[in-house]
């Protein structure tokens, strides 16, 4: 069983990878959000990256403090699934929309 920062930041990485794809879809489909993100830092891509890193760190710290535990295989499978779903969904979005 994984515990501490490894489990917490592993779960946080899974959530962040999926969030990254969802934010890419939403800002691409909804121009006001894209414009807002561009105004916040000067470029939507910078805001997007900062949002991802902030979510990863904040969620990881919160889960660590809560004593989150998970099996190694669930974190490993979750990361593979998130990477496959997140990556392929990103590409398919830009192919079809």
């Amino acid at each position: 069983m994984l515990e501490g920062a490894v489990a917490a930041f592993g779960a946080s990485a899974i959530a962040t990878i999926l969030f990254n794809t969802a934010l890419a879809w939403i800002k691409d489909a909804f121009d006001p959000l894209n414009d807002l993100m561009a105004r916040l830092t000067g470029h939507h891509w910078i805001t997007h990256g900062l949002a991802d890193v902030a979510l990863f760190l904040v969620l990881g710290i919160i889960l660590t403090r809560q004593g989150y535990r998970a099996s190694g295989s669930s974190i490993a499978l979750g990361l593979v699934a998130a990477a496959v779903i997140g990556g392929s969904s990103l590409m398919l979005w830009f192919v079809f929309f």
Partner: protein
Amino acid sequence: MNELILFSHPTFGVLGTMAALWVFVEALNASDSNRVRTLLAALAVTTLIGLACAAGGYWYVFHYAPEKTLILSGPWPFAHGIVMETKEHLFFVLLILAVYLPIVAARRLVVDRPARIVAIVVAGLIVLHGLAIEGAGAIINHGAKAALAQAVAKGSDR
């Protein structure tokens, strides 16, 4: 100077990908004797991928717009419309995995089997993402080159 920044982006990316492969192999052969080396390699991954992101991000934010216009006017518009759009967002996945890797590699992998599995998976995912992103960069580069070649050919026809 701008060209140096542009070319440092894939260079740091390749070095980071190679460092992730190094972590993958060290984690497969985890022992007490390679514990520090594995952690140092994982920290190298974080540093190199971070530098690749900074260099590529600087180029993308400040210099890519004319290249984008050029690619979209050329014979390979998908090099921006699909490949660059995917790459610029997929890079964040690579960055998150690269930041996470040292957290896992800091564990004593020889006795901590769950952490060892996660270290192998994360390092493997970084290698696959790194290779995919390098390939995407080559397609984007060719998209710009093909657009320039088309513009030159049109100019010589006049």
